[in-house]
């Protein structure tokens, strides 16, 4: 290995400091004894205790988890189906258009997605609440799921499905018994991604939410406008931990799956 020059070392430190210092400070201050955010008064976990006494926050957390769970499940089903059709559906009219369109929400500004969904819900007279947030999150998360799953499906050997049909499976059974178990890791990491995205989202949720459906990011945002309290720091720390675990798990799963897949496919194609 090449030794780091002082220049490299400095830029690395600066870069990572720039990225992570704010979060580190937030985490440190969540263990602050004092109510004043900027004054360190010794280590304590009391704000975590208080956080768990706070009905509002607990409610918001519960709403967020419900929304994240249902929207990620729904997004996984829809995203996997979309990926399957786009990769396997053969050449139908407008396929290129469809596969381009499925990626569009990835680059669409969230404000626009949120606003258009809001207009839709008002237009069809759907009362805003948990359901609308779930639908909205499903909408944008399914694109991510579809991207993850279709990249796996592209490299999936179609003769495996043909072999399943040949051995007496109906097309759905072939999908359930052969395709799905093999692409399961990418479906799971798609689900985790969708879950994390839904957990994080502020903009789309604030457009589509309604009474009784305040998610945690919305709650935090509105609380901060009234002044930062150490409770928020504690809450944010927990969120950071959750998201970190989610992202690391997703990437570990997909990495392990990629290794296993490469090995299996090498083995299956070696004659």
């Amino acid at each position: 290995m090449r030794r780091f020059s002082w220049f490299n070392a400095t830029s690395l430190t600066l870069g990572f400091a720039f990225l992570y210092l704010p979060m580190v400070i937030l985490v440190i201050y969540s263990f602050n004894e004092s109510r004043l955010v900027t004054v360190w008064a010794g280590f304590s976990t009391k704000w975590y205790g208080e956080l768990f006494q706070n009905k509002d926050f607990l409610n918001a957390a519960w709403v967020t988890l419900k929304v994240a769970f249902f929207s990620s499940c729904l997004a996984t089903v829809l995203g996997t189906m979309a990926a399957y059709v786009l990769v396997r559906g053969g050449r139908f009219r407008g396929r290129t258009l469809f596969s381009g369109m499925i990626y569009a929400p990835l680059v669409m500004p969230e404000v626009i997605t949120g606003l258009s969904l809001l207009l839709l819900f008002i237009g069809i007279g759907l009362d805003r609440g948990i359901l609308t947030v779930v639908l909205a999150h499903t909408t944008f998360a399914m694109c991510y799921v579809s991207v993850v799953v279709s990249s796996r499906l592209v490299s999936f050997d179609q003769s495996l499905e043909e072999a399943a049909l040949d051995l007496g499976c109906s097309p759905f059974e072939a999908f359930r018994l052969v395709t799905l178990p093999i692409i399961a890791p990418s479906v799971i990491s798609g689900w985790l991604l969708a879950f994390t995205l839904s957990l994080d989202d502020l903009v789309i949720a604030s457009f589509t939410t309604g009474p009784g459906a305040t998610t945690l990011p919305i709650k935090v945002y509105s609380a901060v406008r009234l002044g930062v309290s150490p409770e928020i720091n504690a809450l944010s720390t927990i969120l950071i931990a959750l998201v970190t675990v989610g992202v690391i798990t997703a990437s570990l799963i997909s990495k392990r799956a990629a290794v296993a897949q490469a090995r299996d496919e090498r083995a299956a194609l070696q004659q």
Partner: protein
Amino acid sequence: MAQTIFAPWDDPEEKPLIEFVNVTKRFGDFTAIDNLSQQIYAREFFALLGPSGCGKTTMMRMLAGFETPTEGKILLGGQDIGAIPPNKRSVNMMFQSYALFPHLSIWENIAFGLKREGKDKEFIQARVDEMLRLTRLEAFARRKPHQISGGQRQRVALARSLAKAPKLLLLDEPLGALDKKLREETQFELMDIQESTGTTFVIVTHDQEEAMTVASRVAVMDHGKIIQVATPQNIYEAPNSVYVADFIGDVNLIKGQAKARDIVEGDDTSGGLELHWGEGHAPLVAANGDTALAGKEVVLALRPEKMSISKEHPAAANALKGKVIDIGYLGNISTYHVELDNGTMVKAQIANTRRVSRRQITWEDEVWLSFSATAAIVLEG
């Protein structure tokens, strides 16, 4: 003869198992199968031979149900299978890539089709064990496909397709990448299996020797058409066209003009045709030539091993004079490349019954090639 010869294609009473009726398959405006009609009988070992891209795999995929004919129909046991999806056909295919399920063990791979049929546990257990025994895979039942060798994987693919005891088994280049020894072993295994199970096999292969070894009949294809179907012996000894003669094995082709010969009573080397192939050359005799070709431009096809080589003028029906240009030593045989007076190159294969050092013919020698009156085949030019 005690044993009756297996030749259902010669029996007008026999009903074919598979029948292609004027089948055409197009991909876009490319014609992969061109108005093909063919019958395949139960218990046959039917081999498809032909150059790359001639439509062998496409024929298999139509039988298995992965492609539908653009025109014409395919009958299986007298029934049109055009509308039947692959999972409803009693046809199994062994894929060239094996297509083993990577997430299932060898045992589960073989049991897969039986479980789909809803057979009971004991039956499946017994059948899978039987397949494992047949393919000598007992020791690997619990392993995953990536934990066994290529040859073993190929046996798994075979066992999996055999397990359901299909009426018809399609093998697409099943032994393509095995070493010679393993390939020969497996060929004999296949023939054993076929004999004991009575399954009908259709096999695609690039290896002529393999087709000759295992097949009851060989079909030679070109550009989506079947050019000739015959037993291995007939396809070699009596090709119906220059294309088939040239595709199967080695052959010398000599062009010329055919003329009918007189029939002499009591002489079985009389009659047939003679070939006038050059000024100042004695015509070549082909006593079994079809006199319908008399007067036409024809090609004389002659297998190299049907020729003899000598230094003196031989007393054979046909003799050609030339000069040895090259000798290819192949161990058991040698191939002599001889240039005739008019520049035509001819190959003769001679068994090496003597040690090479005692061989009397060598490079640049003037030699005579000879062959009998019935050795050559006359084909339309």
